[in-house]
């Protein structure tokens, strides 16, 4: 409990324009593909055209006249089959076996290049390296024809995959189920027996992906003169990637340096690590030259990690007045071919189902299966998007069936502000929030009652407008606490270093890593307040393991809380240091000093003061006044408490009942992430996350046919929202500071994607309520909407009510 650590703020809370913008706006920002090193070679992967096959052999003679221009490495050349660390440096890359220690989780073995068996279309079977990218592409294409496959029957449908008699994907396992658990909170049977009504449905949550504008990319440079391996990667987690490269290549960790240069969007996709991030450094080590791999969009949509696919069976028991009595959920994760990060999806979904509601009786079951599709991994709102969607969608169906207004239904069941801290039955500890207030503010903004009157009027004219709501909580500040509360207990580690330089300006090095979030601005605001300087006097270092302290980087809305705390505390140490130096200079007790506006002054006697630059100079150079033991620098560690942001989103639409097309009229969001550091940046995060949520609900789907062939490998097939697909996104803020975190900060960034899909679906279903339409599958493409109009409930696999 440490709110008192925060000081009066001049910068925190202000809409400070981003200090990093000019380099992006002038084209000067350098992403991986923009970095040119002499003698760089270009890598292109040869990828399997089959969803499940054994590799019989690779005939390199098909390279013909290109054979002399390229180097080829197959799985046998790259994959080290033994335990990690048992190979000599350069002796191969050990397989990915998954990092999550969840008890009972079975781990698959994923070779970075398949030596024997491929399990999804796009899995690498070889890599070709050439002097120029065009030649590497030519050679990879030729070599594709030289790979001899024994094609196996794939399992693409998750229900088939986890059922009896399905082909098992890997010899390590006896079935395709890698995790199964069931947990009961309270007397579920009684709740369902006593209920006025019960409702059940099966939802298929679509498989879609982050698709950042910059796809993945790696540049690696082995320097034999120094024995160093420098790796530039479009990653969210440079320090963890460094550790993993050291482990998987058995290369000394101190001689590995990972740099995340500008990263063109991540959204969870670029959490360490993907096979290519290990293969590319290995190639540089083998060839003694810089090697780069820049992913193209086709490869990205074919074999980068994918996200969010689940089958969810959900049941609610309710009283006549709409009070929630109990819930049951079965979360079947379609994890794709390997078990690594995929387990996050159903586990996080199951734990978060109860959301911002008072619902203490709940049975949760998780089944995680494998299938012949690319592995599932993190993408903004992992698991939470799916469970928020099914809950909020079914709630509005229930409310309609009971004849209760959808807002009234929520009012009856939302946790009240005087109930905090509130521990959910799944052990999520909600620290503070505005669950009712955000709903009411959204309802007021959309003029709810007027909308209903207008809706009724238009229906008589044969026009169908609708409004949908979605309330959410968002577990943020992912550290040991948040991961335990989310059902995935893992320990966490992060630091920041704050240094007052001799000039009186401030260097801050952070373990979190920006990929578009504006960290250089937000974090400078925090440091500037603590040290009485201006934002432009603070330089934020991030994304380079050589200049920043160890930590896990940026994901799961953790960075504001972690950097906020570590910077606040380290800056406080530095401030105390400067006070001791200034105390000697001014011949006063350091406790009688204050800092602000570039000066350190005696409290109540502002004429007795020194410029911070003078004190900083003395802290380095004055024999008389400086500290003998240390520099004015401090590194602070923080493993944050979980903080819960919350909010509510409303979407207004009109549906054309003839064509099934949906016109988005308005999106209104009220969010609460505790103490706001920079509302401008928070607005942008909310708007961007909502756009991605709308994409997932309306357009985005990674489609596979029965053979496991991907049918959405271009931006013509995989549709992301464009400027004409979206209306203005109105954002307002509430602020309930966390009582747990330093400064009262909570994380934010995912809420929009967690909540927008349900608001979107609910709006369309509200518009189509006269048709009895019920969504059971996503996205809401026009043909599916037409089916809903014509057939009422179009169910995922015969779901019933």
């Amino acid at each position, binding site marked *: 409990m440490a709110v008192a650590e925060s000081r009066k703020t001049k910068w925190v809370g202000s809409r400070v324009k981003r200090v990093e913008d000019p380099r992006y706006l002038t084209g*000067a920002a350098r992403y991986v593909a923009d970095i040119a090193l002499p003698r760089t070679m270009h890598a292109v992967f040869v990828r399997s055209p089959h969803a499940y096959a054994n590799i019989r052999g690779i005939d390199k003679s098909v390279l013909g006249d290109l054979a002399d221009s390229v180097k080829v490495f197959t799985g046998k050349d790259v994959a080290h089959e033994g335990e990690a660390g048992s190979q000599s440096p350069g002796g191969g890359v050990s397989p990915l076996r998954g990092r999550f220690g969840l008890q009972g989780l079975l781990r698959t073995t994923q070779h970075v290049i398949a030596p024997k068996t491929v399990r999804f279309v796009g899995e690498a079977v070889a890599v070709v390296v050439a002097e120029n990218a065009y030649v590497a592409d030519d050679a990879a294409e030729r070599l594709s024809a030289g790979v001899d496959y024994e094609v196996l029957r794939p399992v693409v449908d998750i229900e088939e995959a986890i059922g009896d008699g399905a082909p098992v994907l890997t010899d390590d396992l006896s079935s395709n189920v890698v995790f199964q658990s069931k947990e009961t909170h309270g007397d579920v049977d009684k709740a369902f027996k006593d209920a006025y009504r019960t409702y059940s449905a099966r939802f298929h949550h679509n498989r879609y992906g982050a698709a950042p504008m910059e796809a993945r990319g790696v540049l690696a440079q082995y320097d034999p003169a120094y024995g160093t391996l420098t790796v530039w990667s479009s990653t969210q987690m440079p320090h963890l990637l460094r550790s993993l490269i050291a482990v998987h290549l058995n290369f000394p960790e101190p001689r590995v340096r990972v740099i995340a240069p*500008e990263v063109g969007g991540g959204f969870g996709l670029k959490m360490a690590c993907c096979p290519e991030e290990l293969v590319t450094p290995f190639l540089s080590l083998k060839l003694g030259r810089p090697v780069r791999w820049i992913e193209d969009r086709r490869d990205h949509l074919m074999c980068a990690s994918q996200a969010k696919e689940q089958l969810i069976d959900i049941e609610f028991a309710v009283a006549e007045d709409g009070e929630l009595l109990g819930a049951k959920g079965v979360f079947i994760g379609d994890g794709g071919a390997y078990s690594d990060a995929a387990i996050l999806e159903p586990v996080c979904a199951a734990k978060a189902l109860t959301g911002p509601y008072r619902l203490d009786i709940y049975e949760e079951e998780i089944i995680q299966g494998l299938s012949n599709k690319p592995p599932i991994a993190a993408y903004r709102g992992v698991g939470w998007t799916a469970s928020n969607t099914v809950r909020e969608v079914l709630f509005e169906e229930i409310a309609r069936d009971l004849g209760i207004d959808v807002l009234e239904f929520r009012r009856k069941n939302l946790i009240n502000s005087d109930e905090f801290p509130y521990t959910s039955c799944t052990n999520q500890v909600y620290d503070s929030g505005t669950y009712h207030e955000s709903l009411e503010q959204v309802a007021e903004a959309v003029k709810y009652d007027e909308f209903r009157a207008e809706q009724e009027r238009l229906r008589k004219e044969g026009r169908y407008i609708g409004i949908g709501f979605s309330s959410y909580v968002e577990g943020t500040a992912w550290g040991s606490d948040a991961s335990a509360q989310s059902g995935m207990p893992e320990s966490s580690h992060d630091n920041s270093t704050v240094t007052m330089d001799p000039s009186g300006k401030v260097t801050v090095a952070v373990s979190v890593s920006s990929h578009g979030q504006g960290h250089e601005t937000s974090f400078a605001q925090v440091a500037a307040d603590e040290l009485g300087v201006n934002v432009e006097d603070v330089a934020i270092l991030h994304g380079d393991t050589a200049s920043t302290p160890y930590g896990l980087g940026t994901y799961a809305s953790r960075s504001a809380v972690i950097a906020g705390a570590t910077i606040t505390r380290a800056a406080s140490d530095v401030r105390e240091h400067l006070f001791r130096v200034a105390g000697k200079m001014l011949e006063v007790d350091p406790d009688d000093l204050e800092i602000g506006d570039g000066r350190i002054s005696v409290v109540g006697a502002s004429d007795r003061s020194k410029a911070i630059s003078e004190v900083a100079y003395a802290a380095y150079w004055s024999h008389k006044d400086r500290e003998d033991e240390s520099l004015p620098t401090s590194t602070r560690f923080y493993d944050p408490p979980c903080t819960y942001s919350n909010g509510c989103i409303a979407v207004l639409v009109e549906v054309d009942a003839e064509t099934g097309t949906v016109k988005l009229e308005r999106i209104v969001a009220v969010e609460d992430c505790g103490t706001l550091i920079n509302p401008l940046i928070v607005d942008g995060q909310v708007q961007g996350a909502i756009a991605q949520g709308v994409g997932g609900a309306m357009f985005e789907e990674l489609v596979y046919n029965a053979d496991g062939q991907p049918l959405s490998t271009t931006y013509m097939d995989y549709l992301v929202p464009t400027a004409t697909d979206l209306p203005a996104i109105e954002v307002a803020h509430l602020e309930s500071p966390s009582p747990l975190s330093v400064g009262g900060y909570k994380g934010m960034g995912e809420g929009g994607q967690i909540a927008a899909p349900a608001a979107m679906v609910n709006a369309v279903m509200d518009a189509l309520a006269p048709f009895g339409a019920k969504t059971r599958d996503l996205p809401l493409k026009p043909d599916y909407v037409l089916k809903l109009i014509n057939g009422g409930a179009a169910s995922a696999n015969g779901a019933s009510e």
Partner: protein
Amino acid sequence: MSGHQVVLNINGSTVEGSVDPRLTLADFIRDQAGLTGTKLGCEHGVCGACTVLVNGEAVRSCLMFAVQASGTEVTTVEGFASNGDLHPLQQAFADKHGLQCGFCTPGMLISSYAFLKENRSPTEDEIRVALSGNICRCTGYQGIVDAVQHAVETDAAAVPLGESSGSPSAHNAKR
């Protein structure tokens, strides 16, 4: 790469090269002219990140070959600012938070500029249509649309590229 001589004027400088016929204009700009501000987001003409001006028209440089562009005047994102001072259109993007990760930004600037040259007082809907060929994954387009509207108010398109609005920018590009 070799075979075909090309000569382009890029942002006012002459750039010559001997290129394969299949070399895209985007790769020529990035690899041979060394101007990496132009980004490649899809290389099949959908995302718009690689948009540049060719003789004043917005063009997807991933869909044009360098040999086709020989003899033309090309403007890239590097042609907007003047000695570190942002062009008013760039300043509008900074003022209205029209960017996050920055990867789509060069294409957005080029498309916006070409559009505003044609339509000096567009509606919000017209702005959205004009930018619908440029994908942004971070902003939900709100900040971008706001930035272009702001640029309309300040008549940013009236300021020639390579000139700033006169006032020094709030920050210098640095890292």
